[in-house]
């Protein structure tokens, strides 16, 4: 006990976390993310963990590695990269963010060798049934609940119409098409008019530039057609930037992006320079908010305050650390796991913002998976602040809409 107190004391007086690591960490946590070119936010989250708890190479706690850039074809490398973490006898938890193909098999290999290691997966890309079979905890963004919540937020802000912009390729993805249908149902229930608009696919012959030009030209026309109190939502990242630009300039609402983050669309649309604050989300938010208000988008544009990928890396790392310090390992995790604790970790990782969500439910068998959690963050409207959307209860009927 004295030791712990002493350590805490040192940590308190020392501004640099590295000094607190003078004694080697008792256990290690492995973090696997993409590289800057693939998924920068995930990597920044891991770097935040290293800044807090130190790198294993310098007697710290975090062992950070990256998976291959072309992970779709180099699955073999992904697997052995993940499995290699079990080689460290002090390893107690492994977090893979994002769970690209090969994660499941990497986890199985760790499990065979070290059944005690906690295996967490942020944003699983593999099929739910696949990742559930190996991970102790898998996380995905809760697009089902968001289908209702985005409409609810639009209603709360006073929107009368809702425009959903997408194209056929995206509508063939199961979750995206389900979310669209939930949005339509929610609009009907809440008294908004739902409009489905098609925009060109940026991967088609028109390219990104053509698709963006289309949005730039059409948004004023849509506002003309559906009125000023129209909220917009698009499924494609490339469409987001021109959409934000037009909404900031004129009218309409932009509740949140498909993958909401202050870095999604805003820096490009409003020309914000962020290089000096990379990884520091409060500072990023401050700068983006100033820019949005300056452009006249106050109260009409929103986002998640913290990047989803960044939070996954950070919160899962923190959560794993708490569990290990409590003596929980993979064998006892199932008994000790509490959803509230997970959300507490997420909330702690994002000061000011809150998270909510629930267990994944298989639509065919209606079986709830207790190791697969869907999460979403509170909505932040620039100029208005948090909207407390995480406190809104999503009616059950929306979870069964196909």
């Amino acid at each position, binding site marked *: 006990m004295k030791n712990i107190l002493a350590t805490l004391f040192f940590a308190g007086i020392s501004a640099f976390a590295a000094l607190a690591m003078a004694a080697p960490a008792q256990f290690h946590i492995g973090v696997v*993310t993409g*590289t*800057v070119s693939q998924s920068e936010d995930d*990597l920044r989250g*891991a770097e935040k963990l290293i800044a807090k708890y130190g790198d294993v*190479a310098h007697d710290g706690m975090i062992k*950070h*590695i*990256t*998976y*291959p*850039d072309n992970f*779709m*074809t*180099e*699955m*073999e*490398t992904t*697997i*052995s*990269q993940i*499995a*290699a973490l079990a*080689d460290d006898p002090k390893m107690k938890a492994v977090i893979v963010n994002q769970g690209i*193909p*090969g994660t*499941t*098999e990497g986890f*199985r290999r760790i499990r065979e060798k070290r059944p005690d290691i906690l295996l967490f997966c942020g944003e699983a*890309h*593999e*099929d739910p*049934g*696949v990742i559930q*079979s190996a991970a102790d905890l898998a996380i995905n963004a809760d697009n089902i609940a968001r289908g209702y919540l985005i409409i609810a937020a639009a209603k709360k802000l006073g929107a009368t119409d809702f425009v959903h912009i997408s194209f056929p390729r995206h509508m*063939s993805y*199961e979750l995206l098409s389900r979310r669209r249908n939930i949005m339509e149902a929610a609009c009907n229930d809440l008294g908004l008019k739902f409009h489905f608009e098609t925009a060109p696919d940026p991967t088609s012959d028109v390219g990104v530039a053509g698709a963006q030009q289309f949005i730039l030209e059409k948004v004023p026309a849509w506002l003309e057609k559906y009125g000023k109190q129209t909220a917009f939502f698009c499924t494609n990242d490339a469409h987001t930037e021109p959409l934000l630009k037009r909404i900031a300039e004129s009218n309409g609402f932009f509740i949140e992006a498909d993958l909401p983050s202050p870095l999604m669309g805003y820096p490009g649309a409003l020309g914000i320079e962020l290089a000096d604050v990379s990884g520091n989300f409060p500072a990023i938010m401050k700068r983006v908010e100033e820019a949005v208000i300056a452009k006249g988008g106050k109260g009409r544009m929103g986002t998640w305050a913290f990047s989803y990928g960044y939070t996954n890396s950070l919160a899962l790392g923190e959560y794993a650390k708490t569990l290990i310090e409590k003596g929980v390992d993979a064998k006892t995790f199932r008994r000790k796991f509490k959803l509230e604790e997970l959300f507490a970790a997420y909330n702690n990782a994002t000061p000011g913002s809150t998270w909510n969500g629930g267990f994944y439910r298989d*639509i*065919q068998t209606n079986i709830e998976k207790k190791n697969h959690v869907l999460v979403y963050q509170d909505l932040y409207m620039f100029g208005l602040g948090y909207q407390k959307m995480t406190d809104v209860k999503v009616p059950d009927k929306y979870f069964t809409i*196909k």
Partner: protein
Amino acid sequence: MNKSDGISQFFIRNAVPLVFLVVSAVAIPISQFSPSYLIQELLIRLSRNAFLVLSLLIPIMAGMGLNFGMVLGAMAGQIGLIFVCDWNIVGVQGLLLAAIISTPLAILFGFLCGIVLNKAQGREMVTSYILGFFMNGVYQLVVLYGFGSLVPIVSAKLLLSRGYGIRNVTNLDGMRRSLDELIPLNIAGIEIPVATFLLIGIFCLFVLWFRKTKLGQDMRATGQDMVVARSAGIRVMRTRIISIVISTVLACYGQIVFLQNVGTMNTYNSHEQAGVFAIAALLVGGATVSRASILNVFTGIILFHLVFIVSPMAGKYLLGDAQIGEYFRVFISYGIIALALVLHAWRRMNDKERARAQFRGAEGGAA
């Protein structure tokens, strides 16, 4: 030939494996992996890849170069696995059934590939490479649109919920490692996939036996000099097609063995790199476009994958940043494949130069 010339010749002949040996010798201590991890990982990769690499030997013997067309075999194997998954047959039985189903497919693919390659004599390698791309498109079309609509697939775990098309990742949980663990053996904490190695051993024996058959002899003759072989009455075109068919069928089994070890299948991507990696491993083992032995296969897999395993961690510890480690791995691994190809070209030139020098030494130099 004097002694120093002999030694330098040894270095020139084995330049590629030696470079890999040096790179891994430097990288292993830096990577800080434990020996048991490295040995385990190497054993896994050896058991996983040996079959695929061995399937390249027979076309080389028949003078058709490196068969990038083995990707077709890999596709056939995957189609077999999709069916078996759909019927929910698990374990070794599932693997066996997948192999049986995919064999006729692989024979068909190999036959078509062989016919095309016969039309493109002298450019077999690049033709088979492009053929692989073409067939990849066909495969994706069939699996993404044909399966579940034209081809009956019932399992909801496989089908996209729109009713047709196979999901992105196919879980092979039921068959996972069923061959590797058929005969369990654990020495000092290292698991040895005995059954897989037995299968590989049988396959090596097959290759050795095959060389002794009339067909093998015909293939060797065709490979060395097609014109002479034809004038001796050997049916050259038929022999070449058979060599590609055998290679494709073996690649199909190789992919099944590979995927049972990996445990999950990227439905649309797993086969893509099968050819490139197998060929790279073979080249690293010191084989050439025209000559390859079983020894090349095993040294190649060990050296190539050793570098693949240790270079990311070595890069991380050397440069202190995880993502730079990844870039380092890509740089080392692919750079070294390019190096292998360059060294081969250089070696060929060197051989030619030497032949010329000998010729001069015997004649002009004497005067």
